[in-house]
Each structure stands twice: as C-alpha cells, then as structure tokens.
C-alpha cells in the first residue's frame, strides 16, 4: 500500500469511528432523557403515559401511609395547587418528611397513581430539591394569575 492510501485509510477509519460513536451517544441520549413535570402539568395530561418521568413538590401533610408489609409506602406529592398520589416500595431517604420537598421518579399508571421507582429528598435541612421548589413556584404563579 502506498503511504498516501494508508493515510487515507487511517483518516477514513478514524472519521468512521467518530461518526459511529457520535450516533451512539445521540441515540442513547434521546432514549434516556427523563423529563420533569409539576403535579399541575400531570393532571393537565401533559405528562407521558408509560414512560419514566419525574414529579416534584411537597409531601402532603398527613398523606404518608404504610401497607402491612411496612415497605410499600403511599403518599401524595403536591405543588400546593394539585395533588398526585404516589406509591413506592423500598427504603425512603433519611430526609423524607411530610411537608418537605421531594422528587419522585417513575411512571404514571392509568388509574392516576404514580408508581415511583426512586425517591429523592432534600440533601440537608435547609435545601429544597430545585425541581420541587420549581413546581411549587409555578403553581403559585399560576394561582396568582387566576385570582387577578
């Protein structure tokens, strides 16, 4: 092989590799994005059914209930305007409490119940998950426009 065609092969192989890698990255990216919705958006039907997404807000006061096995937990997430019932099986984070911010990830079942596979709470006493804060803020903004 001539040095020139060797170099062409090397460059061509490199570019081909790069294109394949970029295609892989982009398709993986599209398939694995997890969107965030506020409880209000979910009840407006803006959230996808059958696909994983996140909702955030406050854990409604008095909503935490445990099933007999002690592991399945039911609670409600609210953005102060709308409420979504959530069920989750597993250990809850240390800082998960009623009246405090939380973000849950999972899917929405047809009966309107959110089945969480992951529950994220605040990271310390003063900090609210940004998504939870965002949801409450949105709901309050919307509330303010309605009342005007």
């Amino acid at each position, binding site marked *: *092989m001539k*040095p020139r065609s*060797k170099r062409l*092969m*090397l460059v061509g192989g*490199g570019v081909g*590799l*790069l294109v394949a*890698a*970029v295609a*892989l*990255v982009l398709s*993986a*990216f599209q*398939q*694995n*994005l*997890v*969107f*965030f919705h506020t409880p209000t958006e979910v009840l407006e039907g803006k959230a996808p059914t059958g696909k994983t997404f*996140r909702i955030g807000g406050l854990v409604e006061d008095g909503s935490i209930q*445990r099933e007999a*096995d*002690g*592991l399945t937990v039911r609670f409600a997430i609210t953005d102060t305007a709308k409420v979504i019932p959530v069920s989750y*099986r*597993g*250990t*809850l984070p*240390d*800082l998960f409490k009623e009246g405090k911010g939380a973000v849950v*990830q999972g899917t929405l079942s047809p009966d309107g119940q959110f089945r969480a596979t992951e529950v994220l709470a605040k*990271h*310390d*006493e003063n*900090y609210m*998950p*940004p*998504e939870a804060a*965002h949801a409450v803020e949105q709901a309050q903004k919307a509330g303010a426009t309605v009342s005007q």
Partner: protein
Amino acid sequence: MIPELGHFALVMAFALALVQAVVPMVGAARNNPSMMAVARPAAQGQFFFIIFAYGCLTWAFITSDFSLQLAASNSHSDTPLMYKITGVWGNHEGSLLLWSLSLSLWTVAVTVFSRHLPEAFMARVIGVLGWVSLGFIAFMLVTSNPFDRLLPGAPEGRDLNPLLQDPGMIIHPPLLYMGYVGFSVAFAFAIAALLTGRLDAAWARWSRPWTTVAWVFLTAGIAVGSAWAYYELGWGGWWFWDPVENASFMPWLLGTALIHSLAVTEKRGAFRSWTVLLAIGAFSLSLLGTFLVRSGVITSVHAFATDPARGMFILALLVVVIGVSLLLYAWRAPKLTGGGSFGLVSRETTLLGNNVLFAVVSASVLMGTLYPLFLDALNLGKISVGPPYFEAVFVPLMTPVVVLMMFGPFLRWKDDDFGAAVRKLAPAAVASVVSGFGIALAIDHVTWRTVLGLTLAAWVVLASLQLLAGRLRERAGASVSSRLSMIPAAWWGMWLAHFGIGIFIIGVTMVGSIDSNLDLRMKDGDQTEFAGYTVRFRGVVDAPGPNYDASRATLEVSRDGKPIATLQPEKRVYRAMGMPMTEAALDIGVFRDVYVSLGEQLPEGDWIVSLHHKPFISWIWAGCIFMVLGGILAAADRRYRRLAERTAAAGALQQAT
C-alpha cells in the same frame, strides 16, 4: 486576631502571585535572567503565606472560634477533633483555600524538582502557575473570603454536614484536589512550550512524570470518593453518575488520554498538537469540575454554595483560561509540523484509537452533565439524565479501548505486521471468550453484559500474563530475578495499571450481575435467609455519640450454623442540625461484602432493614489500587531524570554555539 492574620497572609499571597505571574514571564520574553530568577522565590514565598493562612483557618476550627463565619457554620464544639480539622475543607471557602494550597504545593514541587530545565522555560511554567493562583486567590478575596467574621459571634456552631463526618472524607478532597490541580502543571508546561515554540520530545519528557503523578492523585481521589459513597450513603451503590462524580471523572478520562498521548510524543515525536490540546482540555475540565461542584449549580451533597456571583467568577475564569490558551494554540500550533510517521498497524494507531475514544467518552459525559443545566438556565424545561444514558454510552465505547489496550503493547512502534500480532494474541482471545461464557454459566447469569464484562476481564488478565512472559523470554539465559530487574519501572507501571483495569472490570461485572438486595421489616429475634446467609435481628439500643444520638441495631450473620459476623448499623440524628443519617455496617470479604443498613422505625416498633450482598465489590477498589501503583512506578522511572539532564545539557550547548 488569628483570622485577621490569616486574611492578611492571603492578601500577601495574592501580591506574590501577581509578582510570580508577571515578572518571570516578562523576563522570559526579554531574556532577562534576573527577572526570570524571581520565579522561584516568589512561588516559595507564596507557599509560605498560603500555608500560614491555611494554618490560621484550621486554628479557628480547632479552637471553635465561632466569631468566624466559616467555623460557626461548619463546626461545633462537640465535633471530634479530626472532623474539626477536616471541616476546614468541608465547605466552599475552605475548599478553595485547599485548592490554592495544593496549587502552591505543586508549584513549589516544580521549583524543587525541575532545576535542570532551561531557565526561560521554567520561568514561563512558574509564571503560568502564578496566573492560575492569582485567579483563585482573587476569587477567594472577592467573593468567598474564608476569614469573614460573624459579629456578634455565635454561641455555638452549626456543625459539619454529617455526611462529611467520615474517615473517607478526610482524604477524598485533598487527593482529588491534588489531582485536579496537578493538571495545572501539565497545562503550564503546555502553555510554556507554546510560548517558547518548543513542542518537542524533550517537552513531553519533562511534562510526563508530572502528568502521571496528577493522574495518580485523581485516580486515588475518585476511588476513595466512590468507596465513601458506597458505605456512607447507605444504598450500597458505588457509582451514581451524579454530576459531582462526573465532574471528577471527566478530567480523569481526558487525563488518561493525555498520559498516553504524551507517551507517543515522547517516544515518537508524533501527536504533538493533540497532546497540547489534551493538556488544555484536562485542566479546563478540572476547572469546570470545581465550578460544577462549588458554584451550587447542581444539587448534591457537595454543593453548599448557592451564591451566583461565585459561579459567574469561576465561569469567567474558565472562559479566560480556555479562550486564551486556545488562541495561543491557534497562533502557535500551525508551526508544529512533522513528527514521526507511522503505519496502519502500529502502536501509534492503537494509542490514537484510545485517544479518540477517551475524548468521545469525555464529551458524552460532558453533554449528559451539562445539557440539563443548559436547558434549565434557558428555561426550556427541566430534565435529568440518569445512569441508563451513561451506561448505554460508556460500555460500547470503552469496550474497544480495552481491546486496544491489550493489543498496543504487543505491537511495535512505527510499523508492525497485523497477521503476526493477531496470531500472537489469538489463543488469549479464544481463551477469554470461553472463560467469559464459562464463568457466566457458572454464576447462572448469562446476559450479554455479563459475558462481555467477563470476557474483557479475562482478556486483560491473560494478555497481561502473556505480555509479561514474553518480556521475560527476551533475555533467555539470565536468571529470572535478573531478568525481572532488567525491566524498567515505567514498563511495570504500564503493566500494573492495565492489569488493574482487568481486576476492576471483574468487580464491576460481578457486582452488576449477581448482587442481591432484600428490604424487610424485622423485630427483636426475627430471622431471615438471605443470599445463603442467615441473618438474625438482635434488637436496637440507644448509642449516643459525641455530637449525635444513635439507634444501634445488632444483626448476627451466620452461614450453615457458623457465625460469620455481628453487624451494627446505626440510625443517627446529629444534634446541631437535627439531621438524620444512616450509618451502614459491612462485613468486608475478598469475594463478597455483606452490607446492612437500618431504615426507619415503624409505628408498631419494628424496623425496616436493608440487606445487601455484594460479590467481588472490593475488586473495584483493588483494581484502582493497581492503577495507582502503576502510575507511581511509571512516574518514578529513573530515565526521566537521566534523559532530562542530558537534554538540558544539549540545550545549553546549543544555546552556547
């Protein structure tokens, strides 16, 4: 008084950093030896003042001086002494001071260990480090002064975040920062070389040991951080693809590409511009990592600061660093031509492939980490990119890297015969596919991921052994010990680090394939069967600690009637902030960990207990230890000193004629 002295020392360090940044650079440009000679004393003086400032801050923490804002929000008089000392860097301001301290330490190390380098080059390296230092000290003085007073002083401190009150957190940040900051030395060497117009094999040789040492620190820092997350966060995971972890992983990926690219530049004179770009990139990602973790743009245990002014400052610093160095690169790089040519099948090609793949992986991690932040900043919605994305990208891109990693050392530089290399490696390849399938069948978990992981691990181990055997056969006749001692330290370093990857893959694959988890409710006397073990719950007692109250459970783990371990996980509440914490308990073994954490107490008095069985998880960190040892050996190779001296002598001769 002491904090004011510390603040004053910081201002003095700033002044010296200014001198260090300007005078030697001007001296190098004008070829003025006395101006260039300012570099070393300025750097050493700056080190003195920064360590003094750091000492003052530590003193305020140890003596619980709560009239100091930082101590009041991150310490408590009941905090154990060790965590008072480490509390200094468990926050934004203190960790910046630690950053500056480690930069200063690296700079002094350069002034001490690189005496043989040409004066003008040295002056520029120290000058560039001076600019970086200037940026960080200014950042502290303007937006995040660690010596701010709280008037009137608080009667009691708010205590250090309980998550950080752990031995792992004592060493994780300093190691990580030594790694991050270490890339600033590689960066300074690259910029100095661009300024001098001297990007040759000698430059690569000078830069290589420094880069390798930085990589060693970063590797160790990431490994310790991952071990800490494993036992401290209480979920039994060891890597979460959390933005904070990605922040340290991106410079590691690019740094790994850099140490390999430097090898080609040193040995063959090729890849020169690419090496410079990687050095700039690795350092920029280190800065970006600091920005991500320290500015509060992401929510995580590490993000304590929420002040946007700070974020803007680091972002500006980042833009300046990247902008200026890329401009310089654009101006100088076209002059870089030539370098050794190489054939399609050669060691260079495998290293090129490795470099391209590492760069693509870093870019994809960067995209997954930053894209959600961009969308959020532009108000286009909130999304999150979780582990499934990173795993979907990482596994297929790293698989060819591992294959190339074992091909490379078998190929000669410049040109080799593909057929011969394949024939040499075919037996190992076949054996590894067979053992990959065999082990997957044996553990009864035949998925493509498990088979792939085990095959790759077997491939690394077998090909490494073959490589070593081949190396020993080179000098037939001599005794084995003399043949072993003939092998240079750098080769052993490469071999160990690559072997470590194999060990690491075994750990990752086994944990990912056959770990198991059981969450259940238990009360005193309850017993359960789990992963072949019998676990008996022996109740919960109160166990107060120095600055927390804990409920401590006792669980007896036995197998076939024989007791294995008594584990005591705790649920703690730290008094100062009323913050609850789960403290897991582990029985660590070579082939498996048994991991227990205590959930909450149910109204009926039962407890939720989480049991984990983690096969081969220690191998993950054992692999990292191999990589770290390999790096240390590679950096310690004697030839760097010898060759560097020779080139310096040759350079002096050239200048004289």
